[in-house]
């Protein structure tokens, strides 16, 4: 039977493969306690965290802070759109 921390590490690697870095970082955190001495684990975890920080910096530099989704609603002829 796989232990929860092994599952978490596995899921983190799968998330990295899918380029889901935020999700991967979360799973690395869950497994961290049990892999603290594993150099490979620490390297992957720290690189993922660094990448997320870099992405955050880029977003801030380009004016998209806090991963906010900018939605602009456009009304035609001054009429509000009726949502069905």
């Amino acid at each position, binding site marked *: 039977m796989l232990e929860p921390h092994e599952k978490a590490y596995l899921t983190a*690697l799968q998330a990295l493969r899918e380029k889901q870095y935020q999700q991967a970082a979360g799973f690395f955190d869950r497994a961290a306690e049990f892999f603290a001495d594993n150099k490979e684990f620490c390297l992957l975890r720290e690189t993922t965290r660094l990448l997320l920080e870099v992405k955050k910096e880029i977003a801030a530099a380009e004016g998209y802070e806090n991963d906010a989704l900018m939605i602009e609603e456009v009304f035609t002829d001054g009429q509000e759109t009726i949502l069905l």
Partner: protein
Amino acid sequence: MSRTDSLRSLEVILESFLDRAVSLKAGRLQVLDGINRLDEIACASRGPDGIGRVELSDRIGDWFARHHGWIEDTSLRPADRNRLGDMLAEIRQEIARTPAPMQTPATEKITAEIDRWQARMKAVPVAGPEPSASRKLVLRKGPESLEEAGVHPSAPDSISLFAASLKAVTGLFEDSGRDRLHLMSVLNDSLKSATLQKNTEALLLSALIIYYLKHNGYMVEPFVKRLKEAERLQKGAESHA
């Protein structure tokens, strides 16, 4: 280079590192994923309906179909084989506990398949580390100069150089294309790498993809512009070096 450009460059490098690190572990990841799936099936088999449920029967049938190669695989680690054996035994035990009226032809088939796996896994030898006596490290010294190697200095081996470059470009394409759904996404990544990292292989790969797309009737003008820009930057970097 602006701060954003530097950050973008760092982003590409880190993503590329993680991509390569994960691809190195692809084989191990596949094994762990298979073990994890079987573990989930074993947990589900402990549920109130046992293995008799159609969904569960389908899942384990699918698992056997996907991993049929493992039955003869000598490269699985002994710990992996033990885990698989334990999980299969657990599922087998749950089937045995299922009351007779709930037994179906599907559960009988699963039982037979588990028995076959367990018998084969015991029979297949486990690949252990090679005995130390047979391990040997041989260091060979190459010729000191091109003359010694029988190669005239003025005649560089262009075929070997091109073959090495083609190999590097192919490797880059395999890395970039793994998680992408369209060639244009690979081209976009490759142009980014050619521009930000000044990667020559990425430049060659971009040119190859653009020509391929053009040949297949795609509009490639915007990509050609980016390719020329990347080429200009790389030439600039070379002249400054």
